[in-house]
């Protein structure tokens, strides 16, 4: 019972973190801030998915955790390239 309470509290903290990151996405003066916040949301999502899996007694969502990790990495890299060079995929001639 206590374990469950702890998990819920953890989830709430993660949700607060996501909300805080959302604030940064909305407010964020530069694009880089927003991308950073998005990346951070991704990490928070990984965490909350994990907590959820424990809460729901299932390991069906472990794939998702991996996937979010990969995607948020790829996404951040793509955004970074876009901000830096203006294109995501460069054409090699």
């Amino acid at each position: 019972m206590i374990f469950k309470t702890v998990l819920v509290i953890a989830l709430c903290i993660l949700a607060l973190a996501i909300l805080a990151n959302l604030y940064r996405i909305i407010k964020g003066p530069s694009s880089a801030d927003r991308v950073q916040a998005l990346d951070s949301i991704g990490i928070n999502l990984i965490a909350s998915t994990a907590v959820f899996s424990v809460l729901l007694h299932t390991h069906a969502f472990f794939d998702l955790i991996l996937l979010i990790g990969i995607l948020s990495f790829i996404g951040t890299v793509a955004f970074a390239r876009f901000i830096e060079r203006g294109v995501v995929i460069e054409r090699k001639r």
Partner: protein
Amino acid sequence: MFYTFIFLPLISALFVPLLYKYFNRLVHTGWFVLVVPLTIFIYLLQYIPGVAAGGTYKYTLSWIPSLDMNIVSYVDGLSLLFGLLISGVGALVIVYSIFYMSKIREALHNFYIYLLMFMGAMLGLVFSDHLLVLYGFWELTSVSSFLLISYWYERKSSRQGALKALLITVLGGFGMLAGFIMMIMMADTYSIREMLANLDVLQNHALFIPAMLCVLLGAFTKSAQFPFGIWLPDAMEAPTPVSSYLHSATMVKAGIYLVARMTPIFGGSSVWFWLVAGIGIITLLYGSLTALRQTDLKAMLAYSTISQLGLIMCLLGVGSLAVYFGASDSGTVFGVAGFAALFHLFNHSTFKGSLFMVVGIIDHETGRRDIRYLGGLMQVMPITFTIALVGGLSMAGLPPFNGFLSKEMFFAAVNEVSQAGIFGLSKIGLLFPIIAWVASIFTFVYCMIFIFKTFGGQYRPEKLTRKVHEAPWGMLFSPILLGLLVLFIFFFPNVLGKYILTPALTAMLPMTPMSSYDLKISAWHGLNLELVMTIGVIVVGLLLFKSSKRWVQAMRNYPQGLTLNHWYNKGLSGTERFSTSLTNGYMTGSLRHYLIYTFTFFVIVLISSLLLLYGIRFDFSNDAAISIFDVGLVLGMVIAAGTVLLAGNRIVAIVALGALGYMVAMFFVIFRAPDLALTQMVVETVSTLLFLLCFYHLPKLKKQIERVPFKLTNLIISLAMGLTVTLLALSANGHKLFEPITSFFENSYKLAGAKNIVNAILVDFRGFDTMLEISVLAVAGLGVYILVHQRSKGREQHENE
């Protein structure tokens, strides 16, 4: 046997092009075509004894038996009269056209195909007993008349005349179809004869008057009654044999035929009488007045046709009173009016046919059709003049020509009707003889103008384009024959009356005994009111003709703005302008407007149906409890969605959209849908990347990074949409009618050997959907590839253009 002859024109039309191709150099195609109406005429002649003895013949040709659509033909006096007219005048017109239409210059195969098509349609029309088949032939006459009017399609006026005729007659045709369908609904049969058998059902039905009005609309448009007659003068752009055949002898009488055919059904009611007789007499006056103003001979004859058709229509209306009175003495008296209608119908075909042919001859020999250029042709064309004199005086109603007899009978009928004392006739019944008399005077005057302005006066060869001489005998043959018929009928009217007209009248007024008419037909002698009226017509008419120079000119100055044609043109262009402005008004080309229409329609239809069906009911009793995670996620999603809307910068909107998508994925996690969550994650990432790609490729020049502009309509519509969908979803959730079928899929391991129920559904239980989704993706991929790859080629082509 019967159908072979009735469909002979349609069948032989197929062979005309072959004959034209192989034999036209040697023989005029018309000679081959001539065989067709002659055969039919001779074939139909053999029915005369049987029909005169009171017999009728019925033939059935199976067409769509399961729908009760069979070509049922019914030969009685009325259809036989029309059948003989169609084939007889048809034969004469073809003889005339052989000499009128040049073998070398004209596209004769077209001409004769259209003509045969028309003849077949007309024969089918008059013999049809099946209402829908009758309608089919009716439209075929409209179409073939359209083709014939626009025979010289390179002329603008021909095309316009054809278009006008088609628009007006097809309008009436549709009205008639509606009327027919109402009749079929009332009587529950397609057959006219069966309708006659149970008249009571029809006459006491609520649709009786609407059906009558619709049928009359068809009859009036086809027979060029007021105010639908305006197409007929424009149809004079057709070759003269066509004008002579279609627009005087046959097609314009299809409406007359319809009225005569429907008289036993609709006759006897006051609406029918007033419409038919009233419109008829107005048309008579209108046509005769307008004919005076014409300078073109064909236009004059066209208006005179309108006026004479009005006369026949009026007589039919008076004749329909016989249905009201039944077998009594008054019934017999008004039955004579119906007889006069049929008599004049026959007479009109003879003299008007010959007059049109005369005009054709004049046109052919002088190159002019305008009476202001013509004159003094009496000396150079004596035979043509004689025919014109016979036809013209017959039209004016003078003895010793057949027009005199029918005009006397017409006067007798209108005198009789003024004293009928029913349908409110006692008050304004006197108008009938007065209008009839005045119109007859005008008819007399234009007949005089027609004859004496063309053939009398000074001969002025310098105004004519060709060297004038008498027409060839071949061309004169048909009008001479018709002229002789005009004379013959005057002296021996009873031959025609006994064998053809009396059976036709029996078909038109079946409830009155035929024997009471026999005396009346021969009684055309004697000094009575009608004769006095005719003498009055001649005296006043001659006086008017003498002074015609002064007042006819004044009539020609009648303002154009008040003519029916002006209103027709204005109505047509007004309708076009109105529909253009209407279409341009809402088809703005702006996608935003179209979306507004779509969404507004969606909201209105759904909300109103929800309200009307009392569908808004919420039932939360079965819903699951809401957890804190749900609330938090929804809050986050609302914030993200709001950011998308209010973002001042596109990239913010894209990122917020991505965040929204990720939170949806979290929703899937909470609601335990791992597969969905996985897919949603990947798809969301890819689509965010694609959005970024689009963002990068926005055009540099007009790049304006700004907020979504605020529009109140957009806000209202989007709120309404959201509200509608929410209401709908909540109401639907509260109305679960039966258990879901989930329990079946829960056996997925047993049934499909799969532990993952979602995947089992996707590839096993409902694999078809997946297959098609895959093809959707394939198509999308191909589409993108083609769009990207083929772009440059398309651009090159554009530049080359």
